[in-house]
């Protein structure tokens, strides 16, 4: 229960965790209600980049604090005095807040609250606070900073040793890297210039441990950097280096890492050496620039981060090790993401002219053949004795009709196929009219009204019988079949029930419409009542219904229609489009054969070309 209570930092009395003000002294307790891991206050400003790990920030802040006394800042005295102040206690957290990391402040606050519950750790933390707030604060900070420095140095040494090992593999027997040998071969006069500043300047610096400046070590180190560019390391720069040049040498490219790492190695020598190291590096870069440009390599330039770094690069942790291939893949991925959602420009393919004119040629050939056939080719003679069974069955059904019988002729075709169906239906209508059969026209499409007139005039029937329009499509056909007693007011007047007709003659050019009649109407009427004259394309559709007995007989196409007329003793109508159909079939055959031949020729040409090649 005690652990759940919060302690007012002003009066030291316990409060419930949900209160915002101390019930004893009335002070605000809002800061104590922070949830661990969730920041309600804006993060501390950081010049080195807000995306660094928080612990790194805190370490840098600690080191800054340690460095500040050397810069003659009287902060330690104030800090030493601050615990003694009693009236200024309320202002103390505000002064220290920018210097103490937020996570550390939270830990301390929590430790202070949970002193009893956390036991030893909290008591140590409290002791630590007391010590830090005492006179030994600066000394402890220095010790801590030096400890961190030692750790960092050992880490850097390990990294450099591993890099040297990798570079030794690429070096020649003389210990000179391959790339340096090439440069020396290409520019022997530049060799001296190149090595001179590298050898001389470190001596001026007077520190053999300064990486670039060291004669042998510096060169080998550079070589190791170049050779180990696939392994890009971006170790965290020392706090001193960041303090001196916080934004100058942040690595952006593998080549730039070299310049970025130099200040890190200078960190041991102090701020003065750090400021000089980049200048030496710049001189070396100026010397190498023409050689590098001639080799087509990317020059090593330390670009200020505000110019070269993107937001994504800033977010990468500086102690991240990246292979070159990884970086290239990341670059490709970044480009892909940048291109995401952008519209690709349409590929402008040059339109080949032959693609358009060959269609024109085909169309003209077909048109010429059609016109020539219609004008000059006579109709084919009808051969006797070739009537199929379904045509003979239709003939029998029609000849069974007599005077007084009623026949319903259903026009269910489109105007485009009217010529074909009229040539078939006209002789049949003439036949049943001659036999005194009462027939009636029913149309299921609005265009059927004038098609019926054309059919009657083609057949030479006068007066033209009135056609009845059946609306509703499939539903109308079904209703007409069901309405045996003609009680449905919505059906057209003038029609009898379908059962009253001796035969129903369907003139169809659509297999689906034929199915509608067979499936919606035939089940209500029984077998043997339907006859059909259909377009040639529907012959295959009607045959199963004929075989099953649902259709008494049928004729499909103009050839069977003419045969049917001949069997009925009527004059068949030889429409010229029969010839046109044949010509169309021949043209299609020729085109197909032509396609095969040209393809075979193209393949043969290709093979010959490959053999020659």
């Amino acid at each position, binding site marked *: 229960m005690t652990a759940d209570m919060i302690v007012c930092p002003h009066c030291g009395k316990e409060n419930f965790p949900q209160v915002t003000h101390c019930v004893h002294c009335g002070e605000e307790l809002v800061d104590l209600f922070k949830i661990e891991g969730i920041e309600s206050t804006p993060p501390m400003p950081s010049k080195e980049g807000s995306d660094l790990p928080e612990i790194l920030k805190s370490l840098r802040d600690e080191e800054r604090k340690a460095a500040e006394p050397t810069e003659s800042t009287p902060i330690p005295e104030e800090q030493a005095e601050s615990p003694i102040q009693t009236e200024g206690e309320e202002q103390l957290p505000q002064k220290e807040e920018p210097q103490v990391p937020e996570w550390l402040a939270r830990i301390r606050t929590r430790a202070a609250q949970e002193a009893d519950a956390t036991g030893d750790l909290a008591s140590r933390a409290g002791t630590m606070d007391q010590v830090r707030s005492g006179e030994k604060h600066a000394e402890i900070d220095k010790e801590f900073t030096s400890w961190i420095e030692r750790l960092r140095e050992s880490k850097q040494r390990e990294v450099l040793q591993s890099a040297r090992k990798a570079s030794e593999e690429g070096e020649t027997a003389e210990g000179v890297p391959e790339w340096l040998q090439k440069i020396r071969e290409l520019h022997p006069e530049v060799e001296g210039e190149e090595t001179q500043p590298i050898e001389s300047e470190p001596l001026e610096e007077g520190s053999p441990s300064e990486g670039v400046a060291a004669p042998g070590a510096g060169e080998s180190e550079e070589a190791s950097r170049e050779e180990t560019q696939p392994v890009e390391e971006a170790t965290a720069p020392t706090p001193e280096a960041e303090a001196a040049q916080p934004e100058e040498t942040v690595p952006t490219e593998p080549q730039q890492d070299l310049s970025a790492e130099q200040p890190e190695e200078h960190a041991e020598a102090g701020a003065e050496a750090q400021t000089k190291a980049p200048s030496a590096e710049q001189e070396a870069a100026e010397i190498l620039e023409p050689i590098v440009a001639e080799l087509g390599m990317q020059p090593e330039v330390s670009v200020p981060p505000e110019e070269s770094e993107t937001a994504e690069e800033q977010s990468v942790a500086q102690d991240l090790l990246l292979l070159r291939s990884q970086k290239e893949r990341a670059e490709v991925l970044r480009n892909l993401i940048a291109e995401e959602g952008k519209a690709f420009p349409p590929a402008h393919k040059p339109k080949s002219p032959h693609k358009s004119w*060959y*269609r024109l040629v*085909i*169309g003209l050939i*077909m048109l010429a053949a059609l016109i020539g056939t219609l004008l000059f080719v006579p109709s084919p003679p009808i*051969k006797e004795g*070739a009537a199929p069974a379904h045509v003979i069955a239709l003939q029998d059904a029609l000849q069974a009709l007599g005077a007084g019988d009623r026949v319903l002729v259903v026009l269910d075709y*489109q*105007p*485009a196929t*009217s010529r074909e169906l009229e040539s078939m239906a006209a002789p049949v209508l003439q036949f049943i009219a001659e036999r005194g059969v009462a027939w009636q026209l029913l149309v299921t499409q*609005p*265009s059927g*009204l*004038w*098609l019926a*007139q*054309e059919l009657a005039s083609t057949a030479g029937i006068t007066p033209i019988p*009135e*056609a009845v*329009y059946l*609306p*509703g499509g499939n*539903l*109308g056909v*079904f*209703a007409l079949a*069901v*309405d*045996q*007693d003609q*009680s*449905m*007011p*919505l059906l057209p007047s003038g029609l009898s029930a379908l059962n009253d007709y001796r035969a129903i003659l369907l003139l169809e050019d659509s297999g689906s419409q034929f199915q509608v009649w067979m499936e919606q109407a035939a*089940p*209500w009427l029984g077998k043997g009542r339907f006859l059909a004259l259909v377009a040639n394309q529907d012959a*295959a*559709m009607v*045959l*199963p219904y004929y075989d099953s007995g649902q259709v008494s007989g049928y004729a499909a196409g103009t*050839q069977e229609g003419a045969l049917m007329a001949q069997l009925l003793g009527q004059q068949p109508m030889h429409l010229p489009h029969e010839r046109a159909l*044949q010509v*169309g*079939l*021949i*043209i*299609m*055959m020729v*085109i*197909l*054969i*032509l*396609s*095969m031949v*040209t*393809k075979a020729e*193209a*393949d043969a040409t290709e093979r010959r070309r490959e053999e020659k090649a």
Partner: protein
Amino acid sequence: MKKAIPILIAGLSGLLVLAALIWQPQLAGWLEVVLNWAVIIASVAALVALATLLLAHTRKIIKVRHGFIYSLILIGAFLASFVGGMTAGVENPSYLRWIAAIQQPAEASLLGLAALVMAAAALRLFHQRGWSALTVSFGISALVFLVLGLGWLQALQIPQLDIVIGYLEALPLVGMRGLLIGMGLGALLLGLRIVLGLERPYGE
């Protein structure tokens, strides 16, 4: 409840039609009533569809959208047909001739265009698809049936050839029969699913 009512109506309608087919005299009256409702609803739906079509194209004309000229032609043709049919009567011979003079060449041209497209496709078939089992079998079968369609081989009246021709001509009939059987089975299953409420083509 919102979903149950359409399912109930569809199922009952289907069952009623099936029952009326079996017990025709007894249920014929009920079936006619249901059919009258269906015809009225279908007519109203057709009117609504017509109104929607006209409104959509009128909006397109008013807002001068891309292709509005076609909407203009559609509205004009509709108004001319409607006014002509209302004034002269839909069975007036002059009116019917006028309609026929437009409709017949238009539909015939469409069929001619289809023939041209098929010819062009036949020419490009082997160039685009190359030699494969599909293209070769298609080309051979098309050639065979084009030759049979001409009727010249049948006119020779050679008994052995007639047997072969009869066999070849039966192939599409066999195929169509299989297609019809498949369609019938599919229609049967779909009807059962609708009656049982498993399929809702009328719903969303």
